[in-house]
């Protein structure tokens, strides 16, 4: 460490030697985090683009598949995730203000809400498993959305019947055809929500690591970059869900009961 400078050589222990000061270090870290998030935007963007193209091509099947997912659960989960973004933002605020206890509790609150989100997601996945809505023939009883699924409530899994219930003018053969095509919708549903859930799991790991460091009083007004960057990641995952919710759950619910 250089001690030849006339100005003070005392600096924050978290300051890496290639930076002039803490502000410059934080600016570089924020920039780097955003560059990483841009690669994430492009990864999810590819999925969203593919989703859009297939939705335009098989619109009826996308409506049929979408209408078989539960609005109340998806709605509740959206509120839970937005709530977790709020507690995360508060954790960054507490870190910056040097409020150690508040910071730890806001981080733990974020983890609890994130885990609740994943729990609801698991319940929704199980329902889809029970209704034979998992694409392919490897998992469970194989894909079947037009009757013949031995679900706890066989009515739920039959998208062909649902289509004819909404519009009795649709001939049975074409309703069955549309129900068969919902397999492409469910492929997107599982790929997109699955990749999102995977990000949540990583986020929970990051939060656990932040809780441990926060408990050791490593963050304060001069240095809270890890909390700030963890927050950026968590909010990004929230934004992906803000788009996934209307695009997967609410494609066309005209006339349906909202909640």
């Amino acid at each position, binding site marked *: 460490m250089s001690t030849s400078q006339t100005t003070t050589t005392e600096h924050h222990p978290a300051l890496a030697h290639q930076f002039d000061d803490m502000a410059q270090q*934080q600016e570089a870290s924020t920039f780097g985090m955003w560059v990483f998030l841009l690669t994430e935007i492009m990864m999810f963007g590819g999925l969203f683009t593919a989703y859009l193209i297939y939705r335009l091509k098989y619109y009826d099947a996308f409506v049929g598949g979408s209408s078989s997912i539960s609005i109340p659960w998806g709605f509740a989960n959206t509120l839970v995730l937005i709530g977790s973004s*709020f507690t*995360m933002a508060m954790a960054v605020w507490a870190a910056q203000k040097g409020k150690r206890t508040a910071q730890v509790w806001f981080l733990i609150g974020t983890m609890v809400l994130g885990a609740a989100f994943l729990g609801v997601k698991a319940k929704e996945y199980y329902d889809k498993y029970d209704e034979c809505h998992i694409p392919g023939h490897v998992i469970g009883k194989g894909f079947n959305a037009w009757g013949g699924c031995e679900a706890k409530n066989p009515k739920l899994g039959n998208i062909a019947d649902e289509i004819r219930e909404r519009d009795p003018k649709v001939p049975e053969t074409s309703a069955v055809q549309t129900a068969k095509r919902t397999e492409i919708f469910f492929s997107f549903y599982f790929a997109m929500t699955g990749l999102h859930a995977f990000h949540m799991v990583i986020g929970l790991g990051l939060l656990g690591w932040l809780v441990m460091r926060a408990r050791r009083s490593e963050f304060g007004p001069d240095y809270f970059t890890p909390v700030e960057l963890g*927050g950026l990641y968590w909010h990004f995952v929230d*934004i992906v869900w*803000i788009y996934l919710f*209307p*695009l997967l759950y609410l494609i066309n619910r005209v*006339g349906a009961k909202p909640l």
Partner: protein
Amino acid sequence: MAEHSHPTPKLYAVIVSCLFAGTILTVFAATWELHIFNPIVALVIATTKATLVILYFMHVRYSSRLTKLTVAAGFFWLLILISLSLTDYIPRILQLLR
């Protein structure tokens, strides 16, 4: 870093209330018959919510010009990805509107 004064808890509470309201609104809007505007309304609400998260929760509003430019470049690139992939569909959609 001095000018990067972050928002207060009060502002965060206002933002999260707006996000909750937007979520409720998007569920109800999906059940109204708006024809071609149903997906547009859904995307406008989602984009408004995402913008609030980016500007306030992610502090972009209080960030340096470099960060703002980086974020804008990311979304510009996303628009290129989506719009160029849809070049075959856009004229057909416009034809439907005629």
